[in-house]
């Protein structure tokens, strides 16, 4: 008989949560793409302005944010209980619930469910969870074709590309590029198609209508799951989601376990916070909710796959768990000066931007200094714009610092790197006023260096990382401390 001690080890997230290179390397590449810079700069500036106008209209916005944050904290605290309640209610209303520990399990369950229908084609509602687990690619390997029906997701799919934003997955593309993609990849497209947004949308509509009318299986994610009723909710703008959620016979929903809210009335708060934060709309155009199976109306087979994939791992971290509050509105992406310059692909994960920088490394865990996800918590100046924009008040800068500390602490005891040594040395010097004053006298050697040319323009590595684009400040003739003792100390 084996003895069980402690909590079970928590599974790390797998799937599209980790890039091939570190953030600085991926960012360098993205920064070289001038078209990307222009597309992103224009798009994020527009969304930012619209969002702040939409938010300014709500007099109790700060109370709403606080309510959203409190509801999420409560839901996470009660998660085991809510999951059991949700499962019981889905089953009581004729649905089926499946549990998936990781991406591989979720993909396998979804594929088996599709196979059981005899179908080889599925339509998809835009979903971050299915992107996270790489469902489309998995289905393709198993002879099933998945059609994205959200316009931007369709552009990404046809372009053999990956999304770079939660809400505007093709934000890195402009309309000329979209026209080219349609012309090249969309079956039956009019060869005379222009880059007029209306013409492009009409082409997509014609193409997608065929899919909606023939598909027997739909796959969705969900923005919310309500524990007390077993209800699922999807919030979208184009109506394509509602087509997928109502027309096919079988509906499979992949739901991250953190998406549960306790009560139906809790949605009141989130359905105010989400549209204004994401699309800058007062009310969401299409909010679809379904609860189990209703004979003769909508899908007759309803499956829910509850996905962990690293989430319980995040939940176990008292400070970091607030990352699970995220309602995927993308407000933090749109206000982030780093995201604005490099776009979503540089983050390597399906979760880009500030929230991705705290969520991805927590979901996957960090395997060491060379893990690309180890670089994500440093992909921020801690400017705080993300915290201000977050509708559920996730303290992203605070969690970034917490994750940086965890990364530094994980290395302790091993061989210290140059940064570790520099930080320890700086700490030792700065903890003592006399040592600090002595160090100040040494930095003045820099004056001699600079005096030769009037300014200091080049340093050896790693200082070169500063001097590639910036001069070095010239140390002053007199430090403040010296000025003070010259002008004040005598008189006191």
């Amino acid at each position, binding site marked *: 008989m084996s003895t069980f001690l402690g909590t079970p080890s928590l599974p790390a997230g797998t799937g599209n949560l980790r890039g091939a290179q570190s953030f*600085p390397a991926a960012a360098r590449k993205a920064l070289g793409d001038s078209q990307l810079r222009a597309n992103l700069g224009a798009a994020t500036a527009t969304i930012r302005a619209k969002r702040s106008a939409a938010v300014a209209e709500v007099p109790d916005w700060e109370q709403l944010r606080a309510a959203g944050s409190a509801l999420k904290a409560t839901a996470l605290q009660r998660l085991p209980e809510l999951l059991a309640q949700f499962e019981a209610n889905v089953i009581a209303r004729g649905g089926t619930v499946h549990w998936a520990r990781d991406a591989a399990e979720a993909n396998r369950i979804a594929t088996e469910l599709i196979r059981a229908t005899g179908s080889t084609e599925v339509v998809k509602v835009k979903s971050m969870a299915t992107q996270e687990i790489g469902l489309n690619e998995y289905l393709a390997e198993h002879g099933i074709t998945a059609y994205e029906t959200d316009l931007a997701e369709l552009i990404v799919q046809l372009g053999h590309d990956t999304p770079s934003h939660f809400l505007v997955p093709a934000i890195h593309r402009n309309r000329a590029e979209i026209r080219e993609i349609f012309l090249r990849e969309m079956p039956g497209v009019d060869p005379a198609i222009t880059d007029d947004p209306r013409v492009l949308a009409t082409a997509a509509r014609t193409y997608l209508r065929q899919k909606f009318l023939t598909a027997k299986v739909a796959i969705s994610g969900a923005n919310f799951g309500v524990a007390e009723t077993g209800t699922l909710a999807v919030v979208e703008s184009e109506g394509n989601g509602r087509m997928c959620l109502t027309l096919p016979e079988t509906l499979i929903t992949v739901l991250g376990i953190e998406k549960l809210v306790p009560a139906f009335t809790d949605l009141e708060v989130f359905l105010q916070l989400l549209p204004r934060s994401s699309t800058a709309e007062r009310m969401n155009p299409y909010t679809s909710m379904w609860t189990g199976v209703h004979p003769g109306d909508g899908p007759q087979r309803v499956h829910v796959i509850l996905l962990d994939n690293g989430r319980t791992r995040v939940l176990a971290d008292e400070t970091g768990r607030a990352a699970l509050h995220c309602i995927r509105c993308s407000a933090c992406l749109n206000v982030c000066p780093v995201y604005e310059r490099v776009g979503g692909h540089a983050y390597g994960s399906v979760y880009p931007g500030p929230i991705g920088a705290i969520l991805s490394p927590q979901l996957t865990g960090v395997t060491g200094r060379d893990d690309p996800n180890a670089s994500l918590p440093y992909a921020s100046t801690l400017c705080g714009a993300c915290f201000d924009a977050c509708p559920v008040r996730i303290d992203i800068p605070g969690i970034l610092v917490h994750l940086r500390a965890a990364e530094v*602490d994980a290395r302790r005891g091993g061989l210290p790197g140059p940064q570790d040594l520099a930080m320890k040395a700086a700490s030792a010097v700065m903890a003592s006023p006399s040592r600090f004053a002595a160090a100040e006298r040494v930095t003045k050697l820099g004056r001699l260096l600079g005096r030769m040319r009037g300014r200091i323009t080049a340093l050896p590595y790693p200082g070169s990382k500063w001097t590639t684009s910036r001069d070095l400040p010239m140390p002053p003739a007199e430090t403040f401390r010296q000025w*003070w003792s010259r002008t004040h100390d005598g008189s006191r």
Partner: protein
Amino acid sequence: MRIALFATCLADALFPAAATATVRLLERLGHDVVFPAGQTCCGQMHVNTGYLAEAVPLVRNHVAAFEGEAWDAAVAPSGSCVGSVRHQHAMVARRAGDDGLAVRAEAVAARTYELSELLVDVLAVTDVGAYYPHRVTYHPTCHSLRMLRVGDKPLRLLRAVRGLTLLELPAAESCCGFGGTFALKNSDVSTAMLADKMSTVQRSGAEVCTAGDSSCLMHIGRGLSRLRSGIRTVHLAEILAATETGATRI
């Protein structure tokens, strides 16, 4: 009022003009300035880079240095250092298991102000009697803006400066890309952000860019100097300290 100056390590070692100006300004306003000699650095660089254990001795040193003197309010010419004292010191102490230090740090933090906060909120003055006949644009640094919520206090102070033409900075609230060690760890992104900030400073038509943080001014100023733009960066304290009889050519 007896005011304790936290000069900050950056101002002390590299930009003493921000700290000397703060002293001259407060003395001109009739206050008594003290300089707690034991002070060094708030530890922000360590905290923000993840070296929280290494920040503990710095927090301890800062708290001890300021506790050791009698003063009514402490001031630093730096939004980010005040942000560190106010929002990080107690957290660092608690994380290290030193609740006593955390309580003492909170007591120091509760009476520590950024310069514009001290002037407007504590000393209730917006016209400090300054004279600065230059075209100036103001960059609201991230930590002053979002960590301390200084709001329009610096702008109110600048508007009351005689001779000064205040020019609007496009996309003012966008970060300059400094971010401490971010400027080294993500040098390319930092440079791209700086490039955009410099272009808005140039578009503003100002001859001087000011802010309440020497660190951000160092980033913007050393970038502008590389461009040979002719635009200077000057700390808010230096502008407020300038008068007709002295130091207009700061």
